[in-house]
Every structure is written in C-alpha cells, then in structure tokens.
C-alpha cells in the first residue's frame, strides 16, 4: 500500500490519538511521535506504529502521531484508518490487517 494523499484519523482527546499521514519522497519513511507519556511508553508506541505500518506495506511517507495516552489497539486502529484514507481503498486487503 502506498500513501498517495494527506489524511488524518483520530482525535486529540484523552486516551485517543491523532494520526496524520502524507506522501513521502525518495523512499523515506518518517515517523514522528509526540506523546504525553513518551518517557514511559515511547518505545512501545513506536513499536505498535511501526508494526502496523509494516503490515500495511507502507515503506514511504510521513506519519505524525499526537498521542494522548492511547492503548495499543487504539493506536493500531487510528494508524490503519489514516493510512487507508491516505492511500485510496482500491488495493485494500483486509487479510493483512
């Protein structure tokens, strides 16, 4: 899957997160994570984001996460939703998710 346009998913409310995706250039995948709990859970959040992107086959683009203390399943869902919105649904394989 390829991110072809800008998209967002999620909210800024407590226990949620806002995910912004944008097309990348030159094969670079930039992941920027900001979280109120970055010290305690930064690594964990990054792992979930990276794994979710990998499952979707995303290797290029910009992904910005504004986390408000979300749990893993919320992170996964928001990242998936943002990527799907940003890539167009044509080649969607639900099995991968």
């Amino acid at each position, binding site marked *: 899957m390829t991110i072809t346009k*800008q*998209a*967002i998913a999620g*909210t*800024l*409310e*407590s226990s949620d997160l*806002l995910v*912004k995706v*944008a097309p990348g250039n030159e094969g670079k995948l*930039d992941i*920027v994570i*900001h979280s109120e709990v970055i010290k305690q859970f930064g690594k964990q959040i990054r792992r979930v984001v990276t794994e979710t992107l990998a499952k979707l086959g995303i290797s290029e683009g*910009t992904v*910005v996460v*504004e986390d*408000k203390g979300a749990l893993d399943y919320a992170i996964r869902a928001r990242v998936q939703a943002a990527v799907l919105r940003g890539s167009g649904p044509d080649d969607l394989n639900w099995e991968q998710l």
Partner: protein
Amino acid sequence: MAEFEFYAVRPEDSPREMQEVNNLLADRQLEVDTRVEVFVLCRAGERLIACGGLDQNVIKCVAIAQDFSGESLSLRLGSEIIALASQRGRFHLFLYSAPHNRDLLRGWGFYPLVEVPGLVVLMENSPIALQAYCESLRLRREAGRRIGSVVLNANPFTLGHHFLVKHAAAECDWLHVFVVKEDASEFSYADRFALVAQGVTGIDRLTVHQGSDYIISRATFPSYFLKERKVVDHGWAGIDLLLFREYIAPALGITHRYVGTEPLDVVTNMYNTDMKYWLHDAPSGAAAIAVVEVPRVSINGDPISASAVRTLLAKGDLAEIKKLVPEITLRFLEKKYAGARPVGAGVS
C-alpha cells in the same frame, strides 16, 4: 457532566451567532477576523463557550470562555477544527494565537514557528515540515561572502523588478530570488513564476526559487493580500520576516535582502520599514540581515510598479504598458488578452 455541542457555521449564514462570537472573542481580548470562512462553535446549553475559525489552511480566532478554560474542552475544540479542515481538504495547517495560549495549543499537535512577543505566535501542525523545507533549500546553497535575496510577487513582472534583480545580483556573490506562491493575485502563480524565470535570464549568479507557505503566504502574512483594501497589520509583518530571518536565510546563507523603495503603496512601504526592524534590529537568535533599499526606476517621472501595469491593463492600454514591462511580459499580456482588448498600434 456538561453536555457540549459542536457545530460549524459560515459567518455569512448567521449574523446573530457572529455577534456572540464577537463577544466571546472580545472577552478574551481578541478580534474577529473577516477572512475566516467557517467557525466551529461550541455550546453548553444555550451558551456559546468556545469558538475557532478557519481561513483556508489557517486557524485563528480561537477562544474559550474563562470559566470553561480547561484542557479537555480545548482538545475537543481542536479535534473538531482539525476534522473540519480535513473535510475541506486542508491537512497542512497553521495557527495564529496569542502567545499565552502557546502551551495549550501545543496539545493540538501544533508547533511554534515564530513569535512577535506580546502579540502573536504562528504555529504549524507538523514538527518537521519547515525543517524539511529548509533542508531542500540547503541543497541549493551557493558559496560567497555576500549572499543576496529578493522576494517578488511580480504581479506581473516589470522593468522595475528586472532592475532590482540585476542591481542586487551585481552587488552579490549570489542572489536568491523567491516568487510569492499564494494564488491571491491578478496573475496566477504559474504565470508569475514563468515570467520571472524567463525575465531574469542573462543575469548571472542567481537562483529563482519556487515560493512556499513560509514566504509571504496567507499563513505568514495574511494582510499582504488585502492591500487593495488598505488594511495594515503592522506588527504581524514580523511573523513573515522572522521566519525569513530565523529559518530561510540561515538555510541559504543569506546576508542581504534587497527591496525596491516604495513611494506609492502605503502597505508595501510600511513593510519595508518593518523589514529593517525585524530582519536587522529586532532581538533574535538568528544573525541580522542587512536590508538594502534600491531606488525604484521611473519612466517620465512615474515610478514603475506592477499596480500601474494592472491599472493600464484594465484600460486596455498596452501601448503604455510597453514602457513599463520587459518584452517577455508584454508578449504574455498580448497573448493573454488577445482579442479581448485593443492592442497598441504596430504590434503584430
């Protein structure tokens, strides 16, 4: 727990609610901005307790009633505005706020870019976009001790612009020319850029750059594009100029900025004055940039300006325009307005 209702409203659709917005903003020492296209409003019961406006990709007029000012309502308001912007196809967002709200709005995922102390802070919803832009500029750095810069709207490109660029290039080891990108002018960005790029061929040691959201754009300098209406937001020019001084100039090693003297246009003349202050005199972590004012070229005692060209164009007076613009611009205007307007005698 209080029930909050959020909804969007366009100012022209509800003068009554705009009066409430005015009052809410006034309570928070803010003014309504007429360029806002749509507001997100929040009510607790009947009472308006929060609002935020969207002007294309710029969020402004954000206010929350004093007795509701807590983080959770702010974050819901932010979520609503960001969602509304995305529905309107706007993802790369800027935000203007009073400096004391900076930390609250960091919670919206906006990052401070520059601040005019005590007045306003400009924020952006990406921690990396400006950095990425500066990196792309850095690739086009040129060696030299005196590195000049010119920012042109070129609406359209005149002999005055040509003279300014030529003069600046002659004084510098290298000259960086930026064309204002915002499509808010008579001539499209594509046309203006093409005229500048072709118009400066033959002048050595210069680069013509695409404009960006960070140089005289709706985001960095809202009032610039309203100058026909004589609106002057004096202090706000500092935002655009500090961005230039603190990010763009260091990326390219720019030491000087060239600008034409401005005897005709009040707003632009004020901008020149502001330029000397913000680029050179104002306290800043970035090095000072020298501002060089180049006297404007005159024809028959009248300074050449793009607005004079536009006035003549409205009258269809291409013969007179011919004295003010280079060949390339004249040909463009003839082609664009061919058939629609009388063309000067002898022009084939």
